[in-house]
């Protein structure tokens, strides 16, 4: 059963059609990767799913809920978390504050409560421990290394216990040892039921993690299927290398 369904998505930026009738779905409990050459429209699709840009037309469905055109905070509250291509930490806040911000209070009365409640701190510490940066909990986020910032963003996305996590290039700017660590955490979470949609250029990682690979080119879906089938697809080679 699909958790996320993207239907006939179109996005125009002025005269440029960045996404051109893109449709695909993400099975519940799967790790699905979105790949394609630069400019294929992957990040635009990501931004449309998470609500930071509105599609020209088309729909985004999460289970029974229609996410199309909703504000990003509302989409997050439906259980969709996302990371950014370049880690975006709130530098003047501590690591724990970054974590708690990612699970904001709902409703007037809870908004007036103490900024960090004890149970939130312990949940944050659990997740920081899970990604391996619990010792940095009270450090200012801007003092972290780039890799640590990636880990912080990854952990923060998990704070509200999302159903679907969108990862925009988890391997970007990350050394091989850390990447190993991150992909192990993704698999751990996936085993516990979290669905992933990943934009990634590192093919080795894509082929190892994914259950399904969706290949985009020129704003549309070129093909999709299990990694080993996609890997030998002529159209994919053509899109990437211009040869087939």
């Amino acid at each position: 059963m699909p958790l996320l369904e993207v239907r006939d998505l179109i996005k125009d930026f002025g005269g440029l059609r960045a996404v051109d009738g893109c449709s695909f779905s993400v099975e519940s409990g799967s790790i699905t990767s979105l790949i394609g050459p630069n400019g294929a429209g992957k990040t635009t699709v990501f931004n449309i799913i998470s609500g930071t840009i509105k599609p020209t037309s088309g729909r985004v469905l999460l289970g029974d809920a229609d996410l199309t055109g909703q504000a990003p905070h509302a989409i997050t509250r439906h259980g969709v978390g996302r990371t950014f291509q370049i880690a975006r930490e709130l530098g003047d806040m501590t690591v724990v504050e970054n974590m708690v911000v990612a699970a904001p209070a709902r409703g007037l009365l809870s908004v007036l409560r103490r900024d960090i409640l004890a149970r939130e701190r312990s949940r944050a510490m659990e997740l920081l421990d899970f990604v391996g940066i619990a010792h940095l909990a009270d450090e200012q986020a801007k003092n972290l290394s780039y890799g640590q910032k990636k880990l912080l963003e990854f952990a923060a996305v998990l704070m509200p216990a999302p159903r679907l996590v969108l990862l925009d290039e988890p391997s970007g700017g990350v050394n091989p040892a850390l990447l190993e660590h991150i992909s192990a955490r993704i698999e751990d979470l996936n085993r516990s039921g979290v669905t992933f949609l990943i934009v990634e250029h590192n093919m080795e990682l894509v082929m190892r993690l994914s259950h399904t690979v969706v290949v985009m080119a020129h704003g549309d879906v070129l093909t999709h299927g299990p990694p080993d089938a996609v890997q030998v697809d002529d159209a994919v080679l053509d899109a990437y290398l211009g040869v087939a």
Partner: protein
Amino acid sequence: MGRTPRGLVLGALLLALLATPLSAPFLDSYNYVLQVMIVMFMWIAMTSSWNIIGGFAGYTSLGHGVFFALGGYLSGSLFVYLGLSPFLTAPLAGLVAVGVGLLVGLITLRTRGPSFIISTIALLLMTNLLINNWQFVGGANGMSLPLPTLPLAAAKASFYYAMLVAAVGSVYLAYRVKRSKFGLGLRAVAEDETKAEVAGINTRMYKIAAFALSAFFVAVAGAVWAYSLAYLRPVTFLSIAIAADFVLMPILGGRGTVAGPVLGSVLIVGVNELSVAYFGGTALNLVATGALLLVVLLFFPQGIVGTLRQHRRLPRILDWD
């Protein structure tokens, strides 16, 4: 150690401020001292309030003179036409300002950055135009309020206490906001609005609420100030110089910190008064204020409290967050 001395010192300071008007019989310059303190309290109340949107949320407003005027003119009119004491109507003026802040915020907070600042200047200029031409509140000629019937010293003392209450209330409100989830969300908005929104924060509602809340004590201070002046003109509230002070004082002390606007207000009002006292009616007080800003911001780019905290040099007595 740690907590107790700071509470003690601040408590003692508050007691001393409460007792200051009792010094009347022993102090020659009683009226002058109290007047300076009233101005200081007024700016503490207003800049601490402004700091909720301008500091915590990072949205620089040059339009808070509008709420200042709203407080003054609303309470002033209720006094002139209905005989209601501004001391009683000041909180009402604050609530009306919150309502107006909500409506204004719904429009102006669709913009960010420089566009927001310009929209608040537009608000200031439009209000100026409106009041200058509204004869019900005296137009450009201004509006006289009935003088307080109390003896001068007692009247001064009552303005003093009213402004002190506004200042303490405003600082307390800022403190509570800063330590709440609301305040945490505002800080996220200030740093990276898109990130905050994606994290699940309804950034638009947060900003509008912050803008509205930041109007409350500005209007309260405006009501008390109008009463103490007994004569209102648009320029008293709506000049660009006043709009700039709303921004400069928190920047000097450290915008986004609880103690920053307090420190900035005390320093700017203090330096201004001292230079007027020394140099008389020249414009040298402006030079002195400018020099103060220049020197402080050269060495304390995040404001005094902000920079000291960054270098972990902030004395606990100034750490109110």
